[in-house]
């Protein structure tokens, strides 16, 4: 009778990490790490405390932001950012097509493959701003350095994804085109390109978004664009102008995202 009343054991939720030993080791290790971080990170709390009114001043600068007193500088900076974005996206994608083809294991010979992969690794491990510092040194201040930076960063992003897409393509279709006696160019144009094109158009638009966002930043190190204007506004504690610039950036990013979403749906 009373057999059913005694449940053999309680059900417990299955944990994410199965091995209990590993779970505890990770938890304890992470706790140790955090205490170490808090002990070794000096925080000047009095400075933070002093800064809070300034933070409040900054937040209140958003109501209302001051678009008018620096309007000319803002429009000029935004326009410069937009030119840089357009030109660098186009040049970057144009350059990343050969690099991407070279970095696809299934269609490139080994030496070309390793060379292109090395270019990718270098271009991807440095943040855009670090690249910008060096290109500003080489090409001088202004949008040209920014354009070279963004083009180089685009190569790392775009050709990696292009190479992965080519590696994942359906080999039978390309084989069929080759069997009809096509030259290499015809083979690529009719056998490979139609397979990767829809996704690549979407990624190109996505990269356009990223390039605009980054172009707002590389101005801080002298690469032209709206970042220089923003940096100056902060340096002069003109918070209401800075707020205006940030709002303009957010608006353009949202517009780009919305527009590219539409274009992507249309392309696919």
């Amino acid at each position, binding site marked *: 009778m009373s057999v059913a009343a005694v449940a053999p054991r309680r059900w417990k*939720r*299955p944990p*994410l990490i199965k091995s209990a030993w590993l779970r505890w080791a990770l938890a304890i290790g992470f706790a140790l790490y*955090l205490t170490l*971080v808090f002990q*070794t*990170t*000096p*925080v*000047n709390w009095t*400075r*933070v405390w*002093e*800064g*809070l009114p*300034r*933070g409040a001043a*900054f937040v209140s600068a958003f109501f209302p932001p001051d678009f008018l007193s620096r309007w000319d500088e803002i429009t000029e900076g935004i*326009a*410069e950012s*937009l*030119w*840089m974005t*357009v*030109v660098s996206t*186009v040049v970057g994608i144009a350059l990343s097509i050969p690099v991407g083809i070279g970095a696809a294991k299934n269609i490139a010979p080994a030496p070309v493959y390793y060379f292109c992969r090395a270019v990718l*690794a*270098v271009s991807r*491990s*440095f*943040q855009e*701003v*670090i690249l910008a*510092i060096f290109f500003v*040194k*080489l*090409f*001088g201040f*202004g*949008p*040209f350095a920014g*354009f070279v930076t963004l083009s180089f960063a685009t190569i790392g992003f775009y050709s990696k994804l292009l190479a992965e897409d080519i590696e994942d393509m359906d080999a039978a279709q390309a084989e069929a085109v080759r069997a009809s006696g096509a030259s290499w160019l015809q083979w690529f144009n009719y056998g490979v390109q139609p397979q990767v094109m829809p996704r690549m158009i979407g990624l190109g638009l996505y990269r356009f978004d990223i390039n605009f*966002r*980054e172009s*707002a*930043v590389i101005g*801080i*190190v002298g690469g*032209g664009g709206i*970042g220089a204007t*923003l*940096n100056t506004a*902060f340096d002069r*504690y003109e918070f209401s102008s*800075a707020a205006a610039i*940030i709002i303009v*950036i*957010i608006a353009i*990013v*949202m517009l780009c995202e919305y527009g590219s979403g539409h274009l992507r749906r249309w392309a696919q």
Partner: protein
Amino acid sequence: MATIPARARTWRRRETRVQLLIWLAWLFAVALFIGCFRLISEKTIWAFVWDAPQQAGDLALRMVPPDWLYIRALGRPIWDTINIATVGTLISVLCAIPVAYCAARNTTPSVAVVRPIALFIIVSSRSINALIWALMLVTIIGPGVLAGIIAIALRSIGFCAKLLYEAIEEIDEGQVEAVRSTGASGAQVTAYGIVPQVLPAFAGISVFRWDINIRESTILGLVGAGGIGLELNGAITQLYWTQVSLILLVIIGTVIVSEWVSAKIRHAII
């Protein structure tokens, strides 16, 4: 006998109208590109650009060999950089959970009020680069690692919350329904019906963002927010090029290791 029609139709990829439209789009794109390039070139001192290869060679000569002994001074900045990325990611995922919960269409308390607010938080956090957040925070709370941590956290909330709410919207409603039909309360439905389904995605997103944040936190020092960027900035302004090349090597190494760790963990989870 051989009645071949006079105008045999050859195979073409597209109709004439579509082809024309495509050509027009190309024309417009090329015109836009050339126009933008001319505007840039007006603001460029071309003499500097033509001089660049020589400058690059000169710089490269000054950067080798790297100042290997300088590595002893780099331990602390690298530790700070990793801390900025890790603690920043931790704070951001903790903040991203409620935002994602409010933004997902199937869990949000109110579609009309709370969801737009959550989406607005996501968009504004994503549109502003970590460096800009750091620039603001350094003026507000002063230079140092804390500004870097908060900058990384603020930038990552949007990213994590966006991916997380998409994961929540894709869950299997059947499991939620099953838990609810046992008479579970709202909190129990979340804990037993939703959380187990999104937990792997959540862990993957956190590690992925951590990997991105390592790369981002290498530059925050340029505006004074701590980490290896401070050293890089100092070495560049003092023209210690052999130190600069060592810093760059250390950055590449850190980024590659973090990418490897993150790929391993994500592979183990999914």
